[in-house]
C-alpha cells in the first residue's frame, strides 16, 4: 500500500522527469554538426562575390550622388585629402619643408658658382652644356654632403 509520501514523491519524480526531458531536448537542439570544410568552401565564394557586389554598389552610389556629377580629383579621395588640405592651408609637412630648404640652398650655390664663368644665359655649344652638367653635378654632391654634415 502506497503512503501519502510515496504519492507525493511520485508527483515530484514526474516533474523531475519532465525537467530532464525538457532540458535535454533544449540542449540537443543547441548542438549542430560542424559544417565540413568542402561545404564551407562552397559557401565562401558566393558570399565573397555578394560582398564585392554590395561594396561596388555602395561606391557607385557615393559617386552618383555627388552634386552636379563633378569629376573626382585625386585630392578628394580619402587617402589624399589630408595632404591636399595641408597644402591648401599653406602648412607643408616637415619633409616638404626640408626638401624646399635643400632646393633653395642648391639653387643659391648654382647661382654663385655659375655667375662669374657664364656671362650669358644662352648656351651656345655642346662643350658648354657638358661643362654646365659637370658643374651642376659637383655642386649638387657638395650641397648634399654639406646638408648631411
Amino acid at each position, binding site marked *: 500500500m502506497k503512503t501519502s*509520501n510515496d504519492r*507525493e*514523491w511520485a508527483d*515530484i*519524480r514526474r*516533474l*523531475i522527469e*519532465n*525537467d*530532464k526531458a*525538457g*532540458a*535535454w531536448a*533544449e*540542449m540537443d537542439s*543547441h548542438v549542430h554538426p560542424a559544417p565540413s570544410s568542402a561545404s564551407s568552401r562552397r559557401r565562401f565564394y558566393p558570399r565573397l562575390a555578394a560582398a564585392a557586389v554590395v561594396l561596388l554598389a555602395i561606391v557607385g552610389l557615393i559617386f552618383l550622388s555627388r552634386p552636379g556629377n563633378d569629376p573626382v580629383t585625386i585630392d578628394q579621395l580619402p587617402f589624399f585629402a589630408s595632404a591636399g588640405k595641408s597644402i591648401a592651408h599653406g602648412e607643408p609637412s616637415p619633409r616638404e619643408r626640408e626638401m624646399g630648404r635643400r632646393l633653395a640652398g642648391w639653387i643659391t650655390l648654382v647661382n654663385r658658382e655659375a655667375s662669374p664663368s657664364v656671362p650669358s644665359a644662352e648656351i651656345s655649344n655642346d662643350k658648354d652644356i657638358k661643362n654646365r652638367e659637370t658643374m651642376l653635378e659637383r655642386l649638387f654632391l657638395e650641397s648634399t654632403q654639406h646638408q648631411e654634415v
Partner: protein
Amino acid sequence: MQNAMTIHAVPGAGSEKAEEKRETLHRHLLEQRRDVFLLCLGFTGNPSDARDLAQETFARALARPAVLPEEAYRPWLLRIARNACIDHERRRRIRRIFMPRLAPDEQDRQTPDNNLDRDLGIARVRAAIRSLSRPLREVLVLREYGELSYREIAAALDLKQGTVMSRLNRARDAVIRMVKEECHEDQQ
C-alpha cells in the same frame, strides 16, 4: 570503500593500443553525454551552467584518460561530473562572498533558460534540491538525475548502501516538505 574501478594510465601516445583506448573513451563520452548533462543539471538547477559543467567534465576526462572495464566508464564519468559540480559550487560561493552583486544566485538570474522555464513545479523542485545539504543532494541527484543504482552511488561516494538509502529517504522527505511549503506560500 574502494570500488572496482581501477584506473591505469594510458600507455604511450601513438601506439595502436593507445589509439584504440582513446577511441573507446570517446565512444563512452558520446554515450554518456546525456547522463553527464542531466547530473550537472541536477546539481546546478540551471541548464546553461549544466552545459558548461558537462563540457568541463569531458575536458577533465580527456585530460586524464583511463582504461576501465566497460561497465565502469559511466560511474567514472559521473564521478568526474559530480566533482566538477562541487568545484563550481565552491567557486560560486566564494564569488558571492567577495562580489555579491556580480554573482547573484542562479535562482534569481534571468537567463533565457530561466525565461523558458515556465513550469512552476519544475522550478520549485529545482530550488528545493538546490537548498538541500550537500550529502543529501549528492545522493538524490545521483539517483534521480544520474540514474545510478544504490550500489553505484555507494561506490561513487565511498559509502555503505544502507547510508545511501537512508540519505535518499531524508532527501526525498525534505524536498516534499519544501515543495509543499512553497505551494502553501504561493496560495496565501
